[in-house]
């Protein structure tokens, strides 16, 4: 563009062209971000502005000449001039496209790959990993995989965050003169080759491997190579949470170690003995069990039958929570119970046993009637026993299952061999003994952390320090890494190749989603990224395998194991990768597995057990101690996972801690409540930790959760909770005896059940199956106080709806045409299926970029979970004056559990946003940030929100969450990365403006943000948020449906994150305007009710009444739960109508326990 043309006087000479001429913009070289000022001003508005000011030029305001004119005009406007400074406009965003397009990648559309996750102790889950442009963000269950069938558990969901843990080991280091020196993997390879060669002379004597216990064919193959080369090397599989009792018990019963695989979906009667099988983790529990249980609890009409679950246990587990009849016994009493039961079912197996005749102070129906019930369902009943019971009991249970005809039907005993058959205790004892004797010269620890979790009497750390060369391979710089001479970084399972076998025999290849993350090692100029290596790669280095590539190593195993070769093998391999497991391998381990129980051996074993001591008053100096894996951190391996640290324990709802759990009466005997410190002494060792009261526990028992108190794991998990491994000895891995005493001090526990509580209304509803069978089809039509018709079905008759006026909308006419859109979203949650496992909470967190806020913020009630699980206790109230526990329970009434607390029922209720059609939050928002969509969603526009929090205040369900701070840019433990640098300068990093903080933190948290779902906005400080029904998935599906040219949304076309994860399929989501959709049908079901629906909020999320199917011989069933009784807290006489007798639920049946506060007081 020539200078002359810029002269305003030349304007008129240019012809006014209608079409925009191509611009010569090569002149625009000055500013990087700007074309030129005239372009900025080239808007209709500006044209109008100029029209007013320079009417004479109006006719010329078009085309090139006008712009030239404006260029001069604009330059004279100071404000616009300022705008040409780059800082005033948006920053320069780069787009980096691929150099070469990868196959299948459509930018903006995630790809799903089949992979698998190894489970500790054996087994695997088949997963689908969602990858956005090569970046895995979320894991789902593989819909084809026989174990998962599209469902997934808490740990699988949380594994995506583990991948991006910023505290992972990033490069190998070697300890030289006490100082860590960075080394490269190439050096490690060289060192390994030369170092391990020395063992060729000794046949491997002095060489020991302590490895995780997993079912991986390729790792087994590597083990074989190692043992082939060094026959005398020690190969020791070890897990701190192992199920030795199961292996030993099946050895007794069948003569060979077996893993128990249940087929719960076939079971009509289930007896759970001290087992946490419904939690989906540990003890051989699995997603398949949860799914099977959900299937057995499907009740659609009044003719449907339902499974019955008995639980005999000490700790209140999820199985106990879902049980129809629960009996609380001390762990030591349980063998006697099983023996007595066996006396009725398999008398041969307990012939001559002390236990069968032992004194046990329980209702005889628990033996007679339960046995009769199980026998009556021969072939469709099953007994499940947990890992804390001794091997003899496991053997006996196998005999009972055999007598019940369960083996091969509802339970499979699958032989295991190799690593899986090894005893962890034996492994760690052997190693420890050898180390003490100086027989170990080189110890390789892979994926194990014995310095932290080995039985305490072994003095493992001390002995470990004496070993000359110790090599440790793991994700984190953990306690064992710190004590080892070589600390090697391991690749996450989403980063490299491997393989796995599921409990039912389905063989999967672990497929990497992303190149291993790592940094360029500054110490070495070769720019080699020192990313993690898998155990397979490391073992290949040690044994100097001809293959080093994990892919090749895995393929070699599969090639060797396969009868196919060449093309056929390649095809099979590809099919395996695609499906996520080898075709035909599903269920292969279960086929033809009809083991015969060796009764004589069981009888002999039972002879070793002694009868339990008679019950006495609580003796604090002689209590039983039960060790159990944490429901959220498992054995401690997830301690640096913020999601899991903040996930409330399903029962106690405690986050970020592991208090010692005792029964209320035990606590009372000590005169203590929550937050008080106690000394727990086991075997002469004492640990001081806070106390927590758990109803439903037998008295004289203290339950300790393992996995906390990590010293070295990372910024999230360091020092959180108390290391209960320090009390655990090899002789008492699961249970022992000890004493407890009050200690000095108080401790703050962050418990979420104190928040979001909804007092005194029939929010959660349950009835006995018989009541449903009798009344399920009834619809009560009556008139309310104002003479309006009111229709009440089964679900409505429990709550305040039964005596509140009919719901009449004063805007009724208007409402008619509010929700006419063809898509009307709704969710139905079947409380009968919900087991409270919290997979939905973590799935939601992963999907919706929900931040972790830290213990301090949780304690202030600021946790951010969009879907929480409310846990209610309920007990039968016959006469409150007989209450066994007279605490100060405020308005909530007395706790009336019996001596053993065995009549406490637990109800779980997931609560996401209810998406009310008449949403109370919307009416109070001053800026219209939360409004309704025509599809019935309660929209939340983050960018409009100014943070008044009126909406949260007005939400009767308390499902709205507020970003009090910039949680999303915070570190996982709630602190900022730069906090250390700022400590002492400012009171809290929260006071630093976000931009500045971002600079401080720059780069360091990038890793963590890689997990974020790119389809969901990351919310900032001062913004309200809540469940959106996964609106990003809705929108995606809507676009997909239209792109494909479908005429509507097929039911089940997509799922919300919570629904997708839910193993029992308790959550159903869909279009309620489609009559045939599952959600419509569930909403129509008479069990359906809306929470607080008498407020006329018209919630789109509805619940289905929980049903219990108790054995009437143990507890009387209630056919008519709707009689008028005491305990209606929320109704007043004015709202009563004449129809009391059959219109009311007896809310008195369910009595909520008081809310236990975190500071030791009672709310």
């Amino acid at each position, binding site marked *: 563009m020539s200078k002359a043309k810029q002269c305003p006087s030349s304007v008129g000479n240019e012809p006014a062209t209608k079409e*925009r001429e*191509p*611009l*010569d*913009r*090569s002149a*625009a*070289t000055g500013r*990087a971000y*700007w*074309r030129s000022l*005239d*372009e*900025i001003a*080239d*808007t*209709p*508005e*500006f044209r109008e*502005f100029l029209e007013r000011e320079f009417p004479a030029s109006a006719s010329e305001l078009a085309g090139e000449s006008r712009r030239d004119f404006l260029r001069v005009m604009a330059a004279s406007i100071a*404000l616009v001039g300022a705008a040409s400074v780059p800082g005033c*406009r*948006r920053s*320069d*965003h*780069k*787009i*980096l*496209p*691929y*150099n*070469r*397009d990868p196959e299948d990648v*459509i*930018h*903006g*559309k995630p790809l799903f790959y089949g992979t698998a996750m190894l489970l500790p102790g054996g087994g695997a889950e088949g997963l689908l990993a969602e990858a956005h442009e090569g970046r895995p963000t979320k894991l789902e269950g593989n819909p084809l995989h026989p174990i998962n069938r599209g469902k997934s558990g808490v740990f699988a969901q949380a594994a995506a965050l583990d991948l991006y843990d910023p505290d992972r080991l990033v490069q190998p280091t070697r300890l030289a003169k006490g100082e860590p020196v960075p080394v490269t993997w190439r050096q490690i390879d060289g060192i390994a080759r030369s170092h391990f060669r020395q063992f060729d002379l000794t046949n491997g004597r002095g060489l020991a491997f302590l490895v995780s216990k997993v079912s991986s064919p390729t790792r087994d193959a590597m083990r074989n190579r190692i043992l082939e080369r060094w026959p005398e090397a020690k190969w020791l599989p070890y897990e701190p949470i192992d199920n030795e009792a199961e292996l030993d018990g099946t050895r007794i019963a069948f003569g060979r170690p077996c893993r128990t695989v249940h087929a719960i979906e076939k079971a009509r009667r289930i007896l759970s003995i001290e087992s946490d099988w419904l939690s989906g983790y540990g003890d051989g529990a699995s997603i398949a069990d949860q799914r099977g249980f959900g299937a057995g609890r499907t009740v659609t009409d009044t003719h449907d039958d339902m499974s019955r679950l008995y639980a005999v246990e000490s700790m209140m587990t999820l199985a106990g929570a879902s049980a129809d009849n629960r009996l609380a016994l001390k762990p030591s009493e349980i063998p006697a119970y099983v023996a007595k039961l066996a006396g009725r079912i398999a008398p041969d197996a307990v012939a001559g046993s002390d236990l069968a005749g032992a004194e046990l102070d329980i209702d005889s129906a628990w033996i007679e009637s339960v046995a009769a019930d199980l026998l009556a369902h021969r072939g469709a009943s099953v007994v499940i026993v947990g890992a804390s019971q001794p091997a003899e009991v496991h053997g006996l249970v196998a005999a009972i299952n055999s007598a019940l005809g369960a083996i091969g039907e509802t339970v499979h005993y699958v032989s295991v061999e190799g690593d899986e058959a090894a005893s962890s205790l034996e492994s760690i004892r052997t190693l420890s003994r050898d180390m003490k004797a100086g027989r170990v010269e080189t110890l390789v620890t892979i994926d194990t952390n014995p310095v932290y979790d080995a039985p305490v009497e072994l003095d493992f750390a001390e002995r470990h320090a004496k070993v000359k060369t110790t090599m440790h391979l793991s994700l984190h710089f953990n306690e064992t890494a710190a004590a080892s001479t070589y600390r090697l970084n391991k690749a996450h399972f989403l980063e490299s190749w491997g393989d796995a076998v599921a409990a039912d025999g389905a063989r999967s290849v672990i497929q990497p989603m992303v190149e291993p993350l790592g940094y360029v090692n500054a110490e070495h100029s070769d720019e080699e990224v020192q990313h993690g290596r898998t155990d397979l790669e490391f073992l290949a280095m040690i044994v100097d395998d001809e293959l080093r590539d994990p892919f090749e190593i895995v393929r070699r195993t599969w090639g060797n194991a396969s009868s196919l070769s060449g093309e056929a093998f390649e095809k099979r391999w590809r099919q395996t990768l695609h499906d996520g497991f080898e075709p035909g391998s599903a269920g292969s381990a279960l086929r033809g597995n009809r083991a015969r129980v060796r009764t004589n051996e069981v009888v002999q074993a039972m002879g070793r057990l002694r009868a339990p001591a008679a019950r006495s008053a609580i003796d604090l100096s002689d209590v039983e101690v039960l060790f159990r894996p944490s429901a959220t951190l498992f054995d401690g391996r997830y301690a640096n996972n913020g999601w899991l640290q903040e996930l409330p324990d399903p029962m106690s709802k405690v986050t970020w801690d592991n208090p010692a759990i005792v029964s209320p009466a035990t606590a009372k005997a000590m005169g203590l409540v929550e937050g008080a410190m106690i000394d727990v002494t086991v075997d002469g060792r004492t640990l001081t930790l806070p106390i927590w009261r758990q109803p439903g526990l037998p008295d004289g028992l203290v339950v300790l959760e393992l996995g906390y108190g990590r010293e070295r794991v990372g910024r999230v998990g360091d020092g959180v909770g108390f290391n209960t491994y320090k009390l655990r000895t090899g002789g008492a891995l699961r249970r022992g005896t000890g004493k407890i005493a009050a200690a000095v001090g108080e401790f703050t526990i962050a418990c979420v059940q104190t928040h979001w509580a909804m007092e005194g209304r029939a929010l959660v509803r349950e009835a006995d199956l018989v009541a449903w069978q009798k009344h399920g089809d009834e619809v009560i039509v009556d008139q309310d106080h104002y003479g309006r018709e009111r229709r009440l079905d089964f679900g409505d008759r429990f709550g305040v709806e039964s005596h509140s006026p009919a719901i009449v909308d004063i805007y009724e006419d208007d409402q008619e045409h509010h929700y006419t*859109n*063809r*898509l009307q979203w709704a969710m139905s949650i079947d409380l009968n299926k919900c087991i409270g496992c919290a997979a939905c909470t973590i799935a939601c967190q992963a999907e919706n970029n929900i931040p972790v806020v830290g213990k301090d913020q949780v304690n202030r009630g600021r946790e951010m979970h969009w879907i929480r699980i409310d846990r209610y206790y309920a007990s039968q109230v016959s006469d409150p004056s007989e209450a066994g526990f007279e605490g100060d329970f405020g308005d909530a009434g007395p706790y009336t559990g019996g001596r053993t607390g065995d009549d406490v029922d637990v109800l779980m209720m997931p609560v996401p946003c209810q998406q009310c059609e008449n949403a109370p939050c919307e009416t109070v928002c001053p800026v219209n940030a939360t409004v309704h*969509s*025509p599809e019935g969603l309660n*929209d*939340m*526009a983050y*960018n*409009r929100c100014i943070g008044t929090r009126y909406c949260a205040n007005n939400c009767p369900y308390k499902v709205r969450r507020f970003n009090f701070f910039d949680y999303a840019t915070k570190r996982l433990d709630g602190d900022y990365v730069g906090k250390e640098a700022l400590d002492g300068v400012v009171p809290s990093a929260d006071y630093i403006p976000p931009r500045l903080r971002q600079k401080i933190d720059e780069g360091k948290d990038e890793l963590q943000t890689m997990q974020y779902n790119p*389809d*969901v*906005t990351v919310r900032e400080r001062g913004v309200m948020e809540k469940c*959106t029904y996964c*609106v*990003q998935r809705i*929108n995606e599906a*809507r*676009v997909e449906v*239209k*792109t494909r040219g479908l*005429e*509507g949304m097929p039911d089940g076309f997509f799922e919300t994150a919570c629904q997708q994860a839910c193993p029992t399929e308790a959550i159903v989501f869909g279009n309620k305007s489609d009559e045939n959709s599952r959600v419509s049908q569930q909403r129509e079901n008479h069990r359906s009710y809306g929470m607080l629906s008498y407020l006329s909020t018209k919630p789109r999320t509805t619940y289905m009444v929980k049903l219990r199917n108790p054995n009437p011989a143990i507890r009387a069933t209630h056919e008519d739960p709707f009689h008028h009784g005491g305990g209606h807290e929320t109704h007043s006489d004015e709202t009563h109508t004449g129809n009391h007798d059959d219109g009311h639920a007896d809310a008195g049946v369910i009595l909520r326990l008081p809310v236990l506060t975190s500071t030791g007081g009672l709310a």
Partner: protein
Amino acid sequence: MTHTALFPKWTNSIPTVGAVGGVSTLIVVVAVVWYWFTPSFWEVGYMPTQPVAFSHQLHAGTLAMDCRYCHTNVEESKHANIPATSTCMNCHTVVNETTGYLAKAVSLDGVSPSVHWANEGLAILRESHAAELPVPWRRVHKLPDYVQFNHAAHLNAGVSCYSCHQRIDTMPVVFQSQSLAMGWCLECHRAPEKHLVDTKGLLAGGETVRITDLPTIEKLLTDSSAQLERGEELVDKRLWNDPPQNCSACHY
């Protein structure tokens, strides 16, 4: 009693001047904010210099290449992907070693576009190709993080490139031609008939219009009465629910 002149007489005008001045200042401030603090002022015309002197005018205009030759995923994905270097190299691939001219790619008029390959502006592209590194393009159209826009949804409904990018086939260097403000989005979501084009049977003789044929589509859309008629038909036929105007359609 004498009055001391505590305040000089001119101070009497302070309230008046203050009031008038204050009000006018306020008006000016409001006017300035109202007018200039808008996306249509700040965003339109943003034209960063790109690392490679790629001309849409040449490729999409003169050579009449379909937009989707490079932006391959635009009908399937929310993003209209920026092409990989390899896409450029499909044409600009073989350089005659002696002449330095392109041997393979030939423009419509039969003249080899060799000038591009020797061009200084293509240095980064050549480098990218050799080193297998991405070209650092500068982003022109940028929505805030809290807005989700889906190209595929719009294209499949019949909204052409033209409606948002105007005549990109006439731009030697791409600039933002529309404000991309929420009000601008809603204009169309409230009256979709103004912007929907059918890709079938619109031209005389039932010829198909490519949705990327910007000159033809411009002609169709600017003929407003005929467009309204056709557009309304299309809305009935194609959109089984109206373009959403609720928050969660774009903000989540």
